[in-house]
């Protein structure tokens, strides 16, 4: 289906900037390689794209008619503006000639609203959270200029699991991005996490006989432990060790090249 595109220059256009891509890359991949930041929370290079948070939503205009697969109509059927369609940059393959809007006031407003939804459906009390300053959700909200949660708070009651000797799960802060789910399966070669329930009752569960972390095969060094973009999965008995002013997002802004790696490597190990 992409064969036709090979003949044209392999570039996509994001907000007026021509960006090269390689076959198999998503819009997000291509943007990332070119240093163009598209806000996202559930995406991390190297893991299977997920497309659930919808922060990376972009609009594609006048798409070249390359795809002819079955459900295209179903896709476009609900589109308000016939001239453009909304896709997730992290899951949509880059295709030659795509004219993409991303960093526009309208789209950033959409992203801000989605971020507000994430804040109000959980219990995101930044003031006392040890992830403050290192939290990607918080940083995305800063990036988008979010000042408040806007919507009525859901104030759900969710469980803490501190049964594991070194790792703690605080579901209040979980945003259901499933990064831990994927990291455990795809990188750690385990299957520690999953999502259960549906709708607003969806929640993170642990794959163990008791449903507790202690009975899972999770280990401190697992990627799943360190990939959480919020303060839902934490190393126990540490926190607040990096002084205010020196935390990741005290020093960096989202979208800086290489920042993703900074975030991943942040965790401090005292007993090393």
């Amino acid at each position, binding site marked *: 289906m992409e064969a036709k595109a090979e003949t044209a220059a392999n570039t996509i256009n994001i907000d007026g900037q021509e960006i090269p891509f390689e076959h198999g890359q998503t819009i997000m991949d291509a943007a990332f390689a070119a240093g163009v930041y598209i806000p996202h929370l559930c995406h991390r290079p190297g893991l299977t794209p997920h497309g659930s948070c*919808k922060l990376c939503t972009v609009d594609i205009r006048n798409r070249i008619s390359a795809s002819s697969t*079955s459900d295209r109509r179903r896709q476009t059927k*609900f589109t308000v503006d016939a001239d453009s369609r909304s896709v997730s940059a992290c899951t949509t393959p880059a295709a030659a000639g795509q004219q993409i809007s991303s960093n526009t006031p309208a789209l950033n407003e959409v992203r801000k609203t989605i971020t507000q939804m994430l804040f109000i459906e959980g219990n995101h009390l930044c003031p006392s959270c040890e992830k403050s300053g290192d939290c990607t959700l918080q940083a995305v909200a800063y990036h988008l200029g979010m000042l408040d949660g806007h919507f*009525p708070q859901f104030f759900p009651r969710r469980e803490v699991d501190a049964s594991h000797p070194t790792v703690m799960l605080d579901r209040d802060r979980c945003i*259901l991005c499933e990064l831990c789910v994927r990291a455990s399966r795809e990188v750690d070669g385990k299957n520690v996490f999953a999502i*259960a329930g549906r709708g*607003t009752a969806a929640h993170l569960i642990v*794959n163990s006989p008791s449903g507790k972390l202690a009975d899972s095969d999770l280990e401190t060094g697992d990627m799943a432990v360190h990939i959480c973009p919020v303060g839902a999965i934490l190393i126990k008995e540490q926190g607040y060790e990096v002084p205010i002013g020196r935390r990741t997002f005290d020093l960096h802004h989202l979208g800086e090249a290489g920042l993703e790696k900074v975030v991943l490597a942040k965790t401090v190990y005292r007993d090393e």
Partner: protein
Amino acid sequence: MSPAIRTASSEQLSAFIANTCSKSSHLLHVLHELQHRFLHISPEAVIEVASFLDLPPSQVESAVEFYSFFSTVPHGRFDILLSNCTSCGYTANGQDLLQLLCDRLHVLTGKTRDDGLVSVDETSCIGMCDHGASLLVNGRPVTGLDAVKIMRIAELIETGTPFENWPAEWFDISDSIRKIGLLLSEDITAGNGLRESLMRGIDGTLEEITQSGLRGRGGAGFSTGMKWKFCAEAEGSAHYVICNADEGEPGTFKDRILLQSHADAIFEGMTTCAYAIGAELGFLYLRGEYRYLSPHLEAVLARRRVQGLLGSSILGRSGFNFDIEIVVGAGAYICGEESALIESLEGKRGVPRNRPPFPVTHGYLGQPTVLNNVETFVAAAHIAQNGSAWFRTTGTMKSPGSKLLSVSGDCAYPGIYEYPFGVSIKQVLDDCGAEDVQAVQIGGPAGTLIGRSGYKRIIGFEDLSTGGSFMVFGRKRDLLDIIVNFSRFFAHESCGFCTPCRVGTTLLKNAMNKIAKGQGTQYDLDEMERIGTLIKRRSHCGLGQTAANPILNGLQRFPQIFRQRLARGDFEPSFDLDAALEEARQITHRDDAAAHLE
């Protein structure tokens, strides 16, 4: 009816699960059996099932928690679910039958009575819209409810009367076909279409289906022939055919009639498809609400196997091997979405996949898969038997053939109407005896709400495409209540995968409740429009993309029904102030003036 043993020793549990798994290793089936036998699925059962089926416990647990018909806490020996649909729901005739039943049985909605005898809850539309208010008792539908019948049911439950001794006619679900057309006017002779196809050959069959102009009857309308072709061309270790019998859209019930009375046509269509794409296995994914049809469908399959229409070397054609399994869902509207259905079929939560890739290349187990609607397969079987030219004699240029409409609501003759595509709303309204109509909901809550000015519009892919739900709302209906009902439906059925739909549908539901209680203002209307537009455009799948339709349509076409409920002023609190003090009043036993807020 209800088995007596509700708590089981671990040996009993283990033995039961071993036995069940040996009959069918499909996770949903095992869970259905457990739920039926033990009235809930305990954490021990989850571990045991995971171990027998070699699945991660988390996968079993997540499935248990995802599907409405499974529960982790024990339900009653009589487990009653009343439909909350606007057509077959418990308030459809203006009386709250749910409350009546709960009061009568002294049970709270959603709770199991202390003695374990009964539990009563509500559920999304159960597809009985042509039969009035309806419920499921231990999975079996009872229709035509009214206060008298509810009282009688309560009595039978209180006396512990087994089903066999309930009035048999309660369980008869008649077809109520009101108008027959291209498909319903003649029945298919089992095997005829297949024989024609074998004569045409694979390419010929694909060509015939493509030439017919048949488009998907689920509402999306993709060319069936093209879909089959893409799948046939796609490489994979196996190809699959799936029939989507998960008609969950409130107000639609035409598949129920097809499943009950035209099963041969469905299976014939599936087998034709299997022949065309080279599939050896097919599935019919039956919605949990239609589980009662399963024995009948299994019987038809068994007969077709005997007739040589399924199994090895079908109709003697060496290498043409195909069989069909029935998998029963468990109460999740989202599973009508094709990729969510496939996930469910794989024993997982019904969460829609990212597309591309599409099922035609990466479907069941990642292999090329054709997934079509029940009605599509029926049409395909007819086309195979009678040819594409025959099919094109009816309908319009863009929408050849006929469409089955499930007509319900405020009309004299609810039921199934088969029309050539191109029929106008007005025609349908005239035929079904609808008088003094306020609005029509085409395509269910996910579809569109149409007022008088739209009655000249036609059913067809060029105008109003629909899976078949056609709900009539008379003057006496409170349209706002209908929209509240629909917004609750979507919040309940959102799978929770993507943020806009997961959070947005609940925000819309809450906002609609606020408006309905007379506590909304223009601010809330503006908010609903803004959120609605966002989730329509930014959601992951069709559910989210259509979930705001009732509200957006309502605001656009019936603004007065919202405005007349608005509170004065420009802002009202998001919560009920005085109710927020109730807990404190109870704790302190205070009821003085300062103990209240307005």
